[in-house]
């Protein structure tokens, strides 16, 4: 009996502590700053716009106003945070973006997947901010480029259509397999309509298309389904975006 009471008391105390700690974490999240904010907004599938500033001058206020207006227009998708570059509370995000070495004020947009989708300093327009909100697959392309990879984008008429054989061979090839990332985008996916519009390809496509992007944001070309692997490879080799043995030899290394 005593053991039971002791166990019950233990459970009650443990539960109470758990509740208290839970409440504490809720409170922390409500005041989440910096890196926590990114994770929190990413969890909500939201873009985060950081306005880094040193002086609260007219430039900063104008930039903040543009960002707030943008966030208001995209309330479901975006959140913003104003960060003083010497704020100790925000040191994690300041260090992450090396904000003290940025021309200020600056705005940096971060997609839910962690890709940086915009950086502007001193002034920013509504059109530029609007451009920084990407479709999920487009954000994946940007993240791949920011990781130093060649983005091989397969535009597919439908989810169950296979990518072009050239794209598949490219991804398996010795020269490019560890330097490229494959992103498949379906024309039937309503979220990706904006992607198709941006890469200037109609969603009414009948055959898969392949687009190659090289870091930091070079468009190497859009290729039809009948394009061969050699054409894709040659495009990358000739662009100077690759450092395979063949390119090194051509460059006299």
């Amino acid at each position, binding site marked *: 009996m005593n053991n039971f009471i002791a166990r019950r008391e233990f459970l009650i105390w443990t539960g109470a502590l758990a509740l208290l700690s839970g409440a504490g974490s809720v409170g922390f999240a409500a005041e989440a700053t910096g890196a926590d904010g990114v994770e929190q907004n990413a969890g909500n599938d939201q873009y985060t716009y950081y306005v880094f500033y040193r002086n609260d001058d007219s430039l900063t206020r104008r930039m903040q106003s543009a960002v707030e207006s943008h966030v208001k227009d995209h309330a479901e998708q975006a959140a913003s945070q104003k960060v003083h570059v010497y704020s100790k509370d925000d040191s994690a995000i300041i260090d992450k973006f*090396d904000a003290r070495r940025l021309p200020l004020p600056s705005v940096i947009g971060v997609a839910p997947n962690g890709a*940086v*989708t915009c950086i502007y300093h001193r002034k920013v327009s509504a059109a530029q901010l609007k451009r920084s909100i990407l479709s999920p697959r487009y954000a994946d392309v*940007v993240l791949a480029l920011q990781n*130093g990879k060649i983005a091989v984008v397969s535009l597919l008429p439908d989810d169950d259509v296979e990518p072009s054989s050239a794209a598949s061979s490219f991804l398996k090839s010795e020269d490019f397999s560890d330097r490229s990332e494959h992103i498949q985008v379906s024309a039937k996916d309503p979220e990706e309509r904006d992607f198709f519009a941006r890469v200037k390809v109609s969603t009414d496509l009948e055959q898969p298309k392949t687009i190659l992007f090289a870091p*930091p944001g070079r468009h190497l070309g859009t290729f039809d389904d009948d394009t061969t692997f050699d054409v894709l490879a040659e495009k990358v080799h000739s662009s100077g975006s*690759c450092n395979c043995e063949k390119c090194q030899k051509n*460059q006299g290394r």
Partner: protein
Amino acid sequence: MTIRSLVWKEILQRPAPTVAALLAVALGVAALVSVQSIATSSEAQVARQMNELGANLLVLPKSADLQDYYAADLHNETLPEEYVTTIILAQAVGVEEMAPKLCLQTTIDEKDVTLTGILPRTEFFEKSSWQSVDLMFQEMEETQLGSKHENCTGRTCQLTDADMQDLKSYAKTRVVHDLAPFSILVGADAARELNVSEEDEVEIMGESFKVAAVLPASGTVDDQRVFAHLHTVQDLSGMGPVVNVIEVMGCCEDVTDGLVAELEELLPDARVITISQLVEAQVSMNRLMSRLSYLLFAILMLVGGASIASVMFANVSERRRELGTLLALGATPALLQRLVLMKASLIGVVGGAVGLLFGAVLAFVCGPMVVDVPLDLSLQAIGWGLISALIVAMLFSYFPARKAGHLDPSVCFQDV
């Protein structure tokens, strides 16, 4: 007795006036050879710099003074490091690489060294990649952001893995791909001075650094430096995110003018200069040195010539009796003229040779203080110096020789 022995005995009997004349000629030749050799070596150095750095620009604080490209960061003025990010984000056409630097004078094992903060490429690549969306947009819309200079393949090709790991190439390229916060690169001379080699641990300002590489000799002031990550040097200096200079490497010389204008507009509080502007200053200084050396040579040659003429006139007057005796014994006036001219030419040739030796020593001793490169003697100056010394000595001895030839033996003996 031959003419040669007569001349030799004459010089030995009256050495002081001969040596005085000889010295005047020697000084002129020495000045020409030393200054011309230094100017020639300096020109060669400038040409080498132009070849290596032709498309490079320097972004400096407005108040910074600049004498030497390789020592552009050796001043106390600073620029905010955000200027580097501003240039990256502008995606200016033709910018291939950037090398911001901050210098800190410190000691390692009680030896004075210049610790130079450098920023690796990875820092630029990351910030540049934050513009991916805009770059992709601009590429699709075929506008100019991030475009390459037209018809220019650029200087640096895509980096290979070996390039990325190669730290020693810094001595040549002045850019390093990646550098850990507490790793250092040590210049060839500094490594010798500090007696350090790769993998050694070195303490700088209370922090422990690992020697990541000892750089090969480059023949520049970089050989005497120690390089660390810019942000580490900033932390050690306590100066915050600042730099002394930003070196911008252009893809080719054609792009330089446009780039200067673009950077000046982008960074109105900084001074943007091209290597050619710096070189022009050095070239005009060399030209001035060269002209001054010829002027000095001409003046000293005139002084030397006058001195030779004076010595020879006095010599002819003092030796009237001996010359008269020679004439009485059947010597022709031409022989007496040859005697005088031979002595003069001997002064010219020996003076020239002494001047050449003195000038060479002067150039090798003082040269490295003026231009920090190995010196080569100017063959042109040597040729001009020796020939001019001989011609001046002969020319200025013409009238004394003529006077000797016109001596009348009967008048000479009247003095006896």
